[in-house]
């Protein structure tokens, strides 16, 4: 990735797109905050948060062909899926387990994102299972191109598979095997590790004996890159490069975004037993949204009035999403029985 400012991919981002990225981060944050509140109010059973990870996720989404390239996300990817096209209402429906939940019809816990028309693949809870599956998606892309089933230059077709997970999940054999396929077959595949230095309570030092997850890339013949995941533009540069590699047949990239989760692991967690308040506060000062807002303000793209307008819009969207979700019907009890087998044709 070129470090020269002018030739950086992020330097090519248009002003409106920069504001769109800001907007998605802000929307994700406000939706996330509301979800925590709804949990405290006892209105929902569970929430797991993207807070702190927004820059890494939004940059990743904006670097790919959103809605066309395959995305196989993990539970923390709220900002990412919002950037791809999931709406706050979609998310609220899943929080409330409503029938209109697009990802699973209320069958899955919240944050198990899925949207077939947006090419967001349904995830499960066992960590890292998505990684070799995403390698399979990337394998299919290459297969179709090489076997003449699609035109490699057809930009209406998926041209890469992006998958995400936490640093802890890289301890799983599933991750190893997925990375290995991506390397052996030089697949159009990007693995974005969001390293927030904890797996629930377990610090990264108990997870692996290397300093950086990206140090593991070389074991797979895959390019590894470390980036400050709280720096949206740096993150975009790295992702743009990985996307370029994927599109041009150069192979897979492992992107390690260094970040932090300033809140507990999920609404079931209490993080006071495993980390100091000082540490948390220090990281809060590196908040990616505050940082990008400052940047945009410095660049003259934002000012307090504009920010207020975004905030108001975010509040309104979240309010409406919540209201819609609260008003929506629950699934019928018997919906438990549906979709076990797809009907066989002919």
């Amino acid at each position, binding site marked *: 990735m070129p470090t020269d400012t002018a030739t950086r991919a992020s330097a090519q981002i248009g002003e409106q797109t920069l504001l769109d990225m800001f907007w998605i981060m802000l929307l994700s944050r406000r939706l996330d905050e509301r979800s925590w509140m709804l949990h405290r109010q006892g209105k929902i059973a569970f929430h797991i948060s993207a807070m702190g990870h927004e820059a890494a996720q939004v940059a990743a989404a904006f670097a790919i062909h959103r809605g066309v390239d395959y995305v196989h996300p993990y539970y923390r990817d709220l900002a990412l899926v919002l950037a791809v096209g999931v709406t706050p209402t979609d998310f609220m429906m899943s929080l409330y387990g409503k029938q209109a939940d697009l990802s699973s019809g209320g069958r*899955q*816990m919240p944050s198990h994102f899925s949207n077939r028309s947006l090419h967001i693949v349904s995830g499960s809870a066992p960590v890292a299972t998505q990684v070799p599956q995403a390698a399979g998606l990337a394998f299919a892309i290459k297969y179709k191109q090489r076997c003449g089933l699609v035109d490699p230059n057809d930009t209406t077709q998926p041209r890469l598979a992006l998958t995400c997970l936490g640093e802890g999940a890289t301890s799983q*054999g599933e991750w190893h095997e997925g990375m290995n396929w991506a390397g052996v077959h030089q697949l159009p595949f990007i693995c974005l590790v969001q390293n927030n230095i904890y797996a629930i*309570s377990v610090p990264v030092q108990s997870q692996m004996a290397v300093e950086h997850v990206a140090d593991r890339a070389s074991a797979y013949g895959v390019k590894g890159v470390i980036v400050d995941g709280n720096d949206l533009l740096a993150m975009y540069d790295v992702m743009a490069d990985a996307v370029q590699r994927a599109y041009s047949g150069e192979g897979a990239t492992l992107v390690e975004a260094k970040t932090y989760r300033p809140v507990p692991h999920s609404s079931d967690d209490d993080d006071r037993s495993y980390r100091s308040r000082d540490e948390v506060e220090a990281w809060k000062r590196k908040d990616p949204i505050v940082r990008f807002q400052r940047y945009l303000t410095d660049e003259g793209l934002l000012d307090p009035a504009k920010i207020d307008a975004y905030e108001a819009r975010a509040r309104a969207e979240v309010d409406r999403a919540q209201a819609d979700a609260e008003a929506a019907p629950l*699934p019928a009890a018997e919906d*438990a029985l549906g979709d076990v087998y797809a009907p066989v044709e002919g």
Partner: protein
Amino acid sequence: MAIMTLIDAVRMAMDEEMARDPRVFITGEDVGPRGGVFRATLGLHEKYGGERVVDSPLAELSIVAVGMGAALADLRPICEIQFADFIHPAFNQIISEVSRMYYRSDGQWLVPMVIRAPYGGGIAGGLYHSQSIEAFFTHAPGLKVVVPSTPYDARGLLKSAVRDPNPVLYLEPKKGYRSIKGEVPEAEYTVPIGPARIAREGGDLSVFAYGMMAHYAVQAAEKVAREDGIDAEVIDLRTLLPVDKDAIVNSVKKTGKALIVHEDTHTMGYAAEVAAVLGDDGFEYLDGPIKRLTGPDVPGVPFSHPMQEYFMPNPDKIAAAIRDLAAY
């Protein structure tokens, strides 16, 4: 005698066994300072140190395999799988390795380890935080599979499991971790792995259950006793592997009718084995069809409340099934 929750009894058993035998150690995700996501190991890291209460990498197959290796070297690992749903990555290690080592080595190598896993639904956990996994592992001769349903048994069976020279999969009904309370003596005791327990004596029909369903079955039995004068016997199976065939057949010898209840899905659930035992060894005593009340054949417990309730057996559904069977 103190009244204690099920999870406190589990913790107490581990604490006692660690105090008793320096070879006992705990590993698993978040078992250290965090005390486990359910707090089953709370305080043990502080008491026994990071050497003996070891936060593992996020990797179940190696939690089990490292435990197995340590057991081969004569330690006594207690491996925690955070949710039973996440045991599947370790399937190969449990099925191919842990359960077969003693047999394949002609009795040379022992694997004295315990694998603890909270299991079961009804907690808004969706497909991946609600699973019952006993059906897979009761098809693994060489392994023992234990499911306590009371604090008394939870303590006594877990202590037996830690001391057993064989590998034991110890499934804890997590919905009952705090809601199930019961008397636990102060003095030490163990409960043997193997025999089922008669949770309620009765003569009209037999209900076989375990875990949370053993409680629901007793509640249902009390209800039909009160409301319909039906006297159901409830057998809490407790040890699922090896199968306590005698307990199963003896109860039906007395009652003539059997209802088997579990929250796991239907086809090839554990009830099938109980039914098959009865269909052969119990055939002569049967006065009615062998009934199974289970979760439906869908890939998992759905999250959203109406669907979850539809999935899960409960005291009312059990009572209804008892009435139907009694009327046969």
